[in-house]
């Protein structure tokens, strides 16, 4: 299989990107310094090419009923056109096939954004569940590119490129809400814990927008910083913090499950209800390393009572200048508990903390924890 390139590939090369393979896509990991890119998003504004993500449009009258069956969160909550919902898509056993954002555009149109790495199995699953009905049709939109513009100055800088009418529309856009301006889809969403937008548009237009963003000093940001930003923001990453062997209940995503109304029989509901009734043995927590070292995925976490858990994703936090992780631990573990993490054969001290770790550029940690 030849590696795929997004319409922005040449822009990345021109900006000095180091390109890596990401799920079959040639993507920028950084443009020189991952740390500087991270700080740019926390302090000013940066743009990510996320065109590798899978944009799927669901058209027809049957879309709503189908999504209410397919997804663990309930699209019936979406009443305003453009409103978005974060949801997991589950197996019958309650394992997570993928996490996604679904936008309610109108009664006949939902737009779903799924991960790139899970593309094939997602489409296979969705198609296998899709009713054979003239009232519903599914179309992938590979011709569309997607840019995420994020940071405290993201809206201001992006708006400076728009007409005043369009800029007003963007300024008034509530969080988790999208609108369409001249065929360009703009959603006030992101994966960084900062304000910003995600813009979906044709590939050629994306190249123009990218160049205009560079001209107003929005920094190009690679996938490396995307990972440290989302980890600080306490946002779960598919494949590390969750997968088909873990349910939302033990992945810190219980809040995305819409149990009401009770008669909505979404895929995975029965399994999750049983798991809940039997009592959950694990839960997701944040870890802050109090001694020196760097937390990574799949490190063992040991508690004083002899029980243990495992980090699901960990890294150095450029904002906190400490190492942080998400970890799946015994359900009895509480915020403030101390533990030790096995880092390359050495036990290093850490403390259980609430996450998100960082929001809108600021540490969310209590001072007594640090």
């Amino acid at each position, binding site marked *: 299989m030849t590696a795929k390139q997004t319409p922005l590939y040449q822009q990345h090369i021109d900006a000095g990107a180091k390109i890596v393979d990401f799920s079959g896509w040639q993507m920028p*990991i950084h443009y020189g310094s*991952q740390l500087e890119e991270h700080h740019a998003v926390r302090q000013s504004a940066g743009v990510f090419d996320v065109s590798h993500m899978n944009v799927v449009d669901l058209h027809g009258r049957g879309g709503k009923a189908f999504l209410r069956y397919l997804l663990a969160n309930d699209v019936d909550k979406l009443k305003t056109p453009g409103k978005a919902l974060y949801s997991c898509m589950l197996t019958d056993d309650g394992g997570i096939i993928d996490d996604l954002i679904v936008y309610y555009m109108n009664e006949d149109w939902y737009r779903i954004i799924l991960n790139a790495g899970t593309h094939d199995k997602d489409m296979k699953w969705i198609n296998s569940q899709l009713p054979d009905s003239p009232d519903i049709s599914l179309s992938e939109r590979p011709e569309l590119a997607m840019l995420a513009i994020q940071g405290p100055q993201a809206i201001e800088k992006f708006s400076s490129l728009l007409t005043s009418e369009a800029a007003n529309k963007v300024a008034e856009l509530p969080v988790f809400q999208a609108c369409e301006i001249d065929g360009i889809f703009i959603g006030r969403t992101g994966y960084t814990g900062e304000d910003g937008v995600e813009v979906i548009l044709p590939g050629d237009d994306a190249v123009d927008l990218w160049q205009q963003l560079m001209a107003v000093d929005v920094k190009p940001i690679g996938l490396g910083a995307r990972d440290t930003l989302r980890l600080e923001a306490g946002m779960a990453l598919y494949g590390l913090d969750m997968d088909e062997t873990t349910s939302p209940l033990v992945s810190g995503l219980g809040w995305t499950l819409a149990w009401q109304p009770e008669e909505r029989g979404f895929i995975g509901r029965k399994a999750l209800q049983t798991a809940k009734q039997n009592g959950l043995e694990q839960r997701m927590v944040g870890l802050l390393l109090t001694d020196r070292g*760097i937390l*990574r995925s799949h490190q063992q976490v040991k508690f004083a009572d002899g029980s243990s858990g495992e980090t699901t994703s960990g890294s150095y936090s450029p904002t906190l200048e400490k190492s942080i992780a998400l970890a799946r631990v015994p359900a009895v573990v509480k915020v403030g508990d101390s533990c030790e993490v096995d880092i390359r054969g050495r036990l290093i001290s850490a403390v259980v903390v609430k996450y998100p770790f960082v929001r809108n550029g600021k540490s969310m940690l209590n001072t007594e924890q640090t």
Partner: protein
Amino acid sequence: MSNVPQELKYTKSHEWVLAGDDGQVTIGITDHAQELLGDMVFIELPEIDKQLAAGDECSVVESVKAASDVYAPVAGTVIAVNENLADAPELINEDPYGEGWMFRLQIADVNELDGLMDAEAYESIEAEE
């Protein structure tokens, strides 16, 4: 193309070695290695007086991206470590052959240095990667 100073010796695992005339050698990681790893955030150095055999894992460099072992290029005793790296691991990115040096060994057998690669040989290894 990364910087490969002529006066240094190199290993396949991307350490550089600067030989002094008193049987002391200074060791760090190459420009190529720091570029591959990206921004450094944590460096674990060997203990002073520790005896190392050639090829021993003796140090760890952690970038934002990943942790990577550093190996002793030759046998010897650790006589100094670069303590500045504790607060400024980025020195390895900024100046891998200078301020970013990692540790110093008093070597047991000076002849061991002849087994290391010269700049030209190391460049050919880089080119293969």
